[in-house]
Every structure is written in structure tokens, then in C-alpha cells.
């Protein structure tokens, strides 16, 4: 059951219902980066008194663990184009450095634009927020352009 990709017409609405649940339960905007921020802020104050966003993001991580247990193993081992491009001796160091740098851009960019793929892309667009629409259109267009650029370079 878990060894096949869940059909989009089931997976998409299930994700959408998670957004609705956060609205109904907390009047909150579901967003993973908001959850990360909450955990980081509280931990920096040596506190574990997380609000709903922090517990939500811990749940997302545990959802990955639950999937691992149900499916019997991760769905991938090598890391996509990075492994194919930086194969061989010292390649692992390059991949770690690139992923770390990409992570900085992801974290900073998400905070600057007020959300990531979930906060802006999913929840913000569903709220018809013009700011979220601009951010989402920008990161989708940028990610598509950069992917083609990487494809042309490697």
C-alpha cells in the first residue's frame, strides 16, 4: 500500500483538509516554517512551552517516522541530482555543503516572504492573500527556471 505513490486526487485533498483543520481548531495558518521558527525561538529561550505551530511541526517529522515504519524503509537513498553529479571521492562533502547552503536560502527566503510551500503556497493561496499569491508564483517560477539551469549546466 505504501510502496506506491498515493493518487494525487487523494493526497491533495488530504493535505487541504490539514489546512482546514488548523483553521477550525486554532484559527491558524498551517505552515511548516512557522513551526520551525516557533521551535527555534522557544529553544533559544531554553523553553519547551511550544504553541500549536511547534507541535504541528514535530508531528510532521513523526509523520515521516510513521511512514518509515509502515513502508519498511525510506523511498530513496541517494540524493537526486546531487548524488549523480558529485559521485565519488569527496562527493559527499560537496553534497553536504550544497544542501547546507540551499537550506540557508530556503529558511531565510521563507521567513522573508512570510511562508514556505505550505504557509504561503498552500494556506496563503487558499486564503486568497495577494501577498501569498505573489510569493508562490515567484518561488514556483524561480524553482522551475533554476531546475532547467542546473539541467543545462550538469
Amino acid at each position: 500500500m505504501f510502496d506506491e505513490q498515493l493518487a494525487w486526487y487523494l493526497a491533495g485533498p488530504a493535505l487541504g483538509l490539514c489546512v482546514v483543520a488548523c483553521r477550525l481548531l486554532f484559527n491558524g495558518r498551517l505552515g511548516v516554517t512557522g513551526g520551525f521558527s516557533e521551535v527555534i525561538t522557544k529553544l533559544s529561550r531554553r523553553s519547551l512551552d511550544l504553541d500549536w505551530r511547534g507541535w504541528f511541526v514535530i508531528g510532521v517529522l513523526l509523520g515521516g517516522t510513521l511512514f518509515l515504519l509502515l513502508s519498511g524503509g525510506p523511498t530513496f537513498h541517494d540524493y537526486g541530482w546531487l548524488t549523480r553529479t558529485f559521485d565519488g571521492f569527496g562527493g559527499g562533502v560537496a553534497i553536504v555543503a550544497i544542501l547546507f547552503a540551499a537550506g540557508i536560502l530556503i529558511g531565510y527566503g521563507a521567513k522573508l516572504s512570510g511562508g514556505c510551500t505550505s504557509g504561503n503556497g498552500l494556506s496563503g493561496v487558499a486564503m486568497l492573500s495577494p501577498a501569498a499569491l505573489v510569493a508562490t508564483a515567484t518561488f514556483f517560477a524561480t524553482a522551475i527556471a533554476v531546475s532547467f539551469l542546473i539541467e543545462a549546466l550538469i
Partner: protein
Amino acid sequence: MRTRLAALAVGVVFGLVLCWSRMADPDVIRSALLLEQSYLYLFFASAVLVAALGGELVRRQRRRALLAEAPVGWSRQRPQRRHLVGGLVFGIGWAVADACPGPIATQLGQAIPWALATMAGVVLGIVLFQRGETGETEPALDLVASVERSASEIHPSLVGSSSDAPA
């Protein structure tokens, strides 16, 4: 306690669906961004549609959230320069790592070691932003437009940067 358990449960479902739909797999994201597969776009569009219709239904049917002393509703933000610049920076990182924050969290949950590097970067990126800013761009509670206005009259810190004032 009920709030924590409810938030945890919604998160588990969210993370499980992300993995089951293979959104945690960098090669799946990459082929979507190279426009080779339509799955991600259909998945995303159907999620947004359900979230929009469900959200509107909740707003019409309920005056208060179930587990928060907050009225149900939200204000719509006008786009500012930071939404464009932030989207650009985020988009570059997303295309290079082929993972965004949700899938990165589920990769960590799946004990995929590469995710430690990406997550360390995300944490640094968030901390760098927090050092330079004072307002919260993703508040825990969405304040309704009218509430937001009156709240900002009482004290500007109540609304952070979720108002249309420059960050």
C-alpha cells in the same frame, strides 16, 4: 494539552501524506520542476482548492475556533517587495535541494542523513532572519482585519509584521 495533541495529530497526517505522495523524494520534486510530471501540480491545486473551500466553510459556520480563544477569520495581505525577494531566494534553495521545509522535516523523520545538512541550513537561515527582524511574519493566530486594526491601535506589537506596514 488538547491543543498540543491536536496539532501533533494534524502534523502526523500532513507528514505521512507528504511521504506517501513522494514529496519527500528529491527526484520526484526535480522531475516536477523540470515539468516532466504533472503529479505535483495536480496534487498542489487540489490541496489549495479543498483548503480554500473548507476554510470558507469554517469561516461561515463558526465564530470561534475550537481550541483557541480566537474568532475565525483572516486578513489578506498586500504584496510587498519582501514577498517577491523572499520567493526568489526560497525558489533557488528549493530547486537546488529539491526539498522544501515540510519534506525536509519528514526526511529527518525517515532518518535520511542528508536531511541533517539541509535542516542545519534552514535553521541558520531562520536565525539570520530573526536577528535582523523584530516582527513575526507567520503568527500563530491570524487576526481578523478589523481586530487587527484595533489591536494595532492598542499596541503595535500585537500584530507584528502581519499588518501592511513595512517590515
